[in-house]
């Protein structure tokens, strides 16, 4: 994998970045995701209003109303403002569990794969149990038992993704471990930890990273879904899934406004998915 890289004198990741830049779809979606993230992060400065100020006389104003570009919600709060603020928690729900699962899953996978033998089998077989749960069901079961709340749903989502990432990391580690150069490193007296860090990690990070980027959209759809069920973020906090739930009563009066938060989840999720496809293609350098 690294042979061609050393000739050109560039690191593996800079080659990947170079490849990625040549994919118009991936770059467009990266730009899209970046814009959505910026709008969410800069909401306090960019948003036209306050996300919590309600107004009974201005309930469910249609789009294009004076002062409310995207209308108002069922409590008279400005939709554009709430959509921008809503991105903060929704994106957080998308990124945090994947990041945590990435760290935890890679560690467990490296350990299980490197140790091998009975320990490996014990770890992998017990994780198989989590594969017997459809992911939505597992997330709902855990956060349902823990009770509503954002921390609980973040915990539930992380737990859903960990076994998947462990499996990816473990299978690569097991493959690499048998290679001659690892054996040579061990003979020369390198400790297990430094072998993993120097020789194994580099091989494992790529595939796990590709898999994890693919999980970003799943995580966001699931996270917002938990809020939609009332299990995640609590009102009056702005979050796309929760907004979609509270606006359900308005689908007959102002259907376009009621559908807006979901459209945001959809667009962001498409962005994440196309970006993940691009990353996968870019990292497949052998092609």
């Amino acid at each position, binding site marked *: 994998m690294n042979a061609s890289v050393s000739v050109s004198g560039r690191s593996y990741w800079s080659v990947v970045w170079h490849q990625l830049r040549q994919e118009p779809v991936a770059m467009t979606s990266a730009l899209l995701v970046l814009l959505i993230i910026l709008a969410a992060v800069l909401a306090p400065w960019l948003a036209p209003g306050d996300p919590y100020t309600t107004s009974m006389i201005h309930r469910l104003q249609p789009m294009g109303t004076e002062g409310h570009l995207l209308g108002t919600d069922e409590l008279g709060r400005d939709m554009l403002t709430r959509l921008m603020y809503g991105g903060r928690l929704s994106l957080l729900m998308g990124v945090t569990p994947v990041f945590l699962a990435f760290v935890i899953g890679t560690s467990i996978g490296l350990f299980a794969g490197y140790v091998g033998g009975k320990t490996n089998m014990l770890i992998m*077989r*017990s994780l*198989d*149990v*989590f*594969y*017997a*749960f*459809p*992911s*939505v*069901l*597992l997330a*709902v*079961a*855990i956060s*349902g*038992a*823990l*009770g*509503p709340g954002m921390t609980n749903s973040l915990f539930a989502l992380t737990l859903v993704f960990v076994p998947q990432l462990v499996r990816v990391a473990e299978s690569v580690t097991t493959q690499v471990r048998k290679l001659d150069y690892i054996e040579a490193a061990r003979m020369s007296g390198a400790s297990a930890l430094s072998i993993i860090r120097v020789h194994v990690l580099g091989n494992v990070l790529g595939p796990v990273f590709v898999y994890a980027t693919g999980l970003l*959209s799943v995580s966001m*759809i699931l996270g*917002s*879904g938990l809020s*939609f*069920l*009332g*299990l995640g973020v609590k009102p009056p906090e702005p979050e796309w*899934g929760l907004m*979609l739930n509270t606006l*359900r009563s308005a*689908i*007959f009066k102002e*259907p376009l406004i*009621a*559908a807006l*938060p*979901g*459209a945001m*989840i*959809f667009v962001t*999720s*498409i962005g*994440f*998915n*196309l970006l993940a*496809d691009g990353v996968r293609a870019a990292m497949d350098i052998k092609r």
Partner: protein
Amino acid sequence: MFAYILRRLIYAIPIALGVTLVSFLLVYLAPGDPLNAIAPSDAPAEVITALKVAYGLDKPLPVQYGLWLLRAVQGDLGVSIASGRPVASEVLSAVSNTLILAGIAGTLGVVMGCLLGALAGYWHGSVIDRIATILSVVGVSVPHYWLGMVLTIIFSTWLAWFPAMGAGPGGSAEWVWDYAHIRHLVLPALTLSVIPLGIITRTVRALIADMLDQEFVIALRARGLSNITIFKHVAMNTAPTVLAVSGLQIGYLMGGSILVETVFAWPGTGFLLNTAIFQRDIPLLQGTILVLCMFFVALNLLVDIIQPLIDPRMARG
């Protein structure tokens, strides 16, 4: 073949046991004492002690699990705190409604996905291919609970073609295969079918496109076989993978339907889980999760057993 099936069955047993263990432990994941859900918080101490003995909560955890498992195997999943009725009977009627929805949606998604994927794979790089690619990205990216709302807005609010809620006229929860009930099934099934559609389209497209370049297909073509005969060979070779992916996807629908059922007020397990979660009815939560997961385990086992019937090489591995 027999040895293979036996091996698969034996492998499924620890998985099934693990599922029961996780379901059992859900009670202990819930904050507070499991008794809180049963007894009022101001109950006198002797009542609490009596209840503890009655529910077996005074015994060590492994014993509790054993007793719970023994009862669960006999079909006793405890009593729902919210309704006071046995959990098993509540779960069974809800599960049958969910299975109808997931079954129809799954079939719809698999058939459409295979068709679209095959066309896209055969005419690689054509307009159909591009449409299929876009559709599959949309399919995996769309939050299905939102799609359900959008379909309701279009087909119920604006066009008034299909009802927006429930499983039958007058909010009937009992499923019957007649026109009035099927009308209620259309929107939720269509919404749910999008989940497997994207992934199956993508899988079939890649498989077919790859397969058509294989030497055995070129050899078949060179021998002058008709397109239909070649298609049969290709189909048989892609079937095991498609089956595995489809089985998994249909299984995921049992979880995915929770959200769609909420949107359409479908009287299935999603509704039950909602009640269980918000009334803190842990036995009901436990029972529903357990039964749904057992169906998922059984489905995976079924796929594992069918696969070598199509491709006998798999039984030897």
